[in-house]
């Protein structure tokens, strides 16, 4: 039985804590008697037989007829799936999406469906490489559908292939992929790694146009998203749910399949990363020392290769199918059961070890904007009720924050960093002044549609993702970060954790309370 997550009060017997530091990690000693560390629950056991669990979910969907009954020979069937931003790190094969889509295709074949399209629902993310599609979908699906052009990726900038389905009472226009809009049945295969994923968000963002996304991907709604992991208090999700209602009323029939995974993110020998420090065995300590020392001396490129090569031994913990909203409620329950840790009260300083990966750089470089997005966007948002850090408190992140950008994946990020951040770090101002130019830049559009680049506007979205955290924190310090890059983003660089605490004392006084979010492994703090 996995042990639940808990809050550790740091005392003088507490060993130093593990912090991610990009492609490295470090052990930092937190001040005794005023620090606490939030540990996630241990990884839940996976389903014994995921294959039959999926079949069972398809036969017994929630608030919908069984998939078998929805399929008939002369129909248009479209299967959409989450792109490479899930899961992190990528799960070892077979991926949950492969299992799900194969089960769906089996039924479709039985029913004699001929017109099947499989679409990667990547929104404004970069197109996946073929090898990524093979990894996610498996060779069987790829070889059967890719050659004849029925496995392809959504294109949010193709006016020919977008269709308007309607408008919400807030004036938001639902514009999505034409094939999806005109299908008789849309099946969506999800991987719900965190509570933010899934529900109407899958289709409404995954196959939407830039225009449609900009209704909720903007500074105002993200500043009112409290938090991303709690859809009932998220302006972003409210807007998406409104659009979902339009989709439900005037769109195609949607059969949603959501699957949850456990938190078993690291294979041996990196499995010590998910262990509690005082339970590290001699072998774990040796592995830590060996890897930490090696990574310190290793070129960044090589270290990145090692980490992005990790295939997580995630296991599927649950799968539900049927009507989107009913399915999502069940999924959320499961996700929360694994992730929620109850925490008493807020803190003056929140410390975050920022890892080598975020949803926007699979197989790629964690550039400074993504460090901000990961720290203030994702990790800061790992809460329910209220943030872990008090309003005006200090957030300390550890990451090298080097000025490296992936030229193929993140072309607009480079210009965003050089031009936009040099001008302003205020999301509202940049949205007003710069967003349109980047969104409509022909070159970026070309790279997004034909290459493997994120959409021109994507660095803005990444920045908005951290808008709530940026607004909430009195000061953000990045330990070990490249000073110019960190300053450019409006944060404070510090060379060591102790320095960071000294710098923080301007804001929070000499003996602040400190909370450390212990990652890896995901958790959502339910702050009372």
């Amino acid at each position, binding site marked *: 039985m996995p*042990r639940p997550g808990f809050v550790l*009060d*740091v005392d003088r017997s507490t*060993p*130093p804590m593990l912090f991610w530091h990009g492609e490295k990690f470090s052990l930092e000693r937190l001040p005794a008697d005023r620090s606490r560390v939030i540990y996630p629950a241990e990884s839940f056991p996976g389903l014994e037989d995921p294959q039959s669990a999926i079949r069972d979910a398809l036969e017994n969907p929630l608030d919908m007829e069984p998939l078998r009954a929805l399929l008939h020979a002369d129909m248009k069937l479209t299967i959409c799936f989450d792109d490479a931003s899930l899961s992190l790190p990528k799960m070892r094969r077979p991926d949950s999406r492969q299992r799900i889509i194969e089960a769906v295709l089996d039924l479709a074949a039985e029913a004699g469906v001929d017109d099947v399209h499989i679409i990667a629902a990547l929104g404004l993310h970069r197109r996946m490489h073929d090898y990524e599609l093979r990894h996610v979908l498996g060779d069987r699906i790829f070889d059967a559908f890719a050659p004849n052009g029925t496995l392809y990726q959504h294109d949010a900038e193709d006016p020919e292939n977008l269709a308007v389905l309607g408008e919400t009472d807030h004036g938001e226009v639902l514009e999505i992929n034409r094939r999806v809009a005109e299908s008789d049945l849309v099946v969506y295969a999800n991987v719900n790694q965190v509570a933010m994923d899934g529900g109407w968000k899958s289709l409404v963002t995954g196959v939407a146009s830039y225009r449609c996304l900009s209704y909720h991907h903007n500074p105002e709604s993200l500043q009112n998203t409290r938090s991303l992991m709690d859809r009932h208090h998220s302006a972003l999700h409210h807007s998406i749910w409104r659009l979902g209602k339009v989709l439900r009323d005037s769109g195609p029939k949607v059969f949603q399949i959501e699957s949850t995974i456990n938190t078993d993110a690291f294979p041996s020998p990196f499995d010590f990363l998910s262990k509690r420090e005082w339970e*590290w065995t001699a072998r774990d*300590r040796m592995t830590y020392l060996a890897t930490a020392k090696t990574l310190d001396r290793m070129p960044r490129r090589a270290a990145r290769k090692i980490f992005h090569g990790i295939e997580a031994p995630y296991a599927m913990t649950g799968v539900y199918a049927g009507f989107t909203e009913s399915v999502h409620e069940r999924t959320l329950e499961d996700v929360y059961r694994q992730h929620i840790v109850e925490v008493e009260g807020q803190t003056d300083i929140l410390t975050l070890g920022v890892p080598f990966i975020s949803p926007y750089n699979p197989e790629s470089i964690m550039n400074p904007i993504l460090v901000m997005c990961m720290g203030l966007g994702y990790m800061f948002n790992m809460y329910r009720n209220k943030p872990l850090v008090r309003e005006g408190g200090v957030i300390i992140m550890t990451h090298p924050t080097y000025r490296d950008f992936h030229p193929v994946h993140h072309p607009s990020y480079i210009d965003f960093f050089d031009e936009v951040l040099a001008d302003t770090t205020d999301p509202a101002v940049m949205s007003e002044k710069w967003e349109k130019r980047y969104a409509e830049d022909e070159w970026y559009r070309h790279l997004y549609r034909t290459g493997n680049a994120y959409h021109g506007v994507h660095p803005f979205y990444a920045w908005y993702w951290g808008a709530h955290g940026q607004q909430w924190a009195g000061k953000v310090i990045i330990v070990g970060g490249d000073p110019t890059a960190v300053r450019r983003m409006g944060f404070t660089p510090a060379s060591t954790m102790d320095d960071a605490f000294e710098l923080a004392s301007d804001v929070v006084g000499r003996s602040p309370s400190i909370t450390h979010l212990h990652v890896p492994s995901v958790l959502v703090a339910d702050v009372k």
Partner: protein
Amino acid sequence: MRSKRHITKRAQQFAGRAEQTIRSVAKPLAKYGFPWRAPTVPRGIEVPEKPDTLGSNFETDWARRPLASVARSAFIAGPLKLMTAVIARPEVHGLDRLADLSRLDDSPPLIFAPDHHSHLDTIVMIRAIPPAWRQDLVVAAAADYFFDKRWKATFSALALNAIPIDREATGRQSADLFKELIDDGRSLLIYPEGGRSPDGWAQPFKGGAAYLSAKTGVAVVPVHIEGTGAIFGKGMKRPRPGRTRVIFGAPLTSFEDENTRRYNARIESAVGRLTEESVSDYWTAARKASTGSADRLSGPETASWRRKWMLTDRRRREVSGRNSRPERDWPNLGPRSR
């Protein structure tokens, strides 16, 4: 002459100086905490216990696989034989009582139930038990002595084919295991006293051997071991080589309407009779047993000095009495405690 106390004092002073030296040398090491050293556990944290794989939980199946059996045979035939010969010089009597069984093509398994004075008993017994049963012999050994360290546990399982039994807990689990092993055709060496004798007299027999015999129908062979207590008795630090004697009794089986308690008592008195036989002769022992005047195996219930006194008398007639120690006129008060 320098007294022992003086030497201890000196040793302690030396240790003190060594400690100071280490302290100054090791000073730079102080900054190497976790992960160079093992972590300490924060207050209030319960570290889940790793399943204990030692003691009575020690897994011994591997020791009965063919390769291990071969290794054991070699060990018993070589080093163990030599060791027994040097330390214990055993003489074995009463094997004729088992001769009929051992001549059968497929000798039936037996439960050997000797009295228990020393950890040496096991080694002596393994050598004394006829080859027909030795190869498949399983020894019930105290989990807290033979299985408390990994090397000891491995050695005990490999060399002695020992199986850990927990003396404290009630042994339903081990009883089931033994039953299984006996059903497999293995013989068993079990000490019904459950522990070594503290003073030279035996302790009351526990019902384990009787229970197993009654359940499985396998015969119990009462055995008396003599002399091991003087060589390496309870509380002794190192063995003092001497002579030993092992006497096998006739196999017993449970009567139809006999309960385990009475059967157990019968086994106990059989061992008692062998003890008597050892210090006097077969005929005296038989007569004493039939008239009910035999000494109880566990000695008279009298003041402790008289128990010891009587034991002294007996010791003199035992094999260990033949270990000449002419300078001593004092009564033998059992093994020296230091």
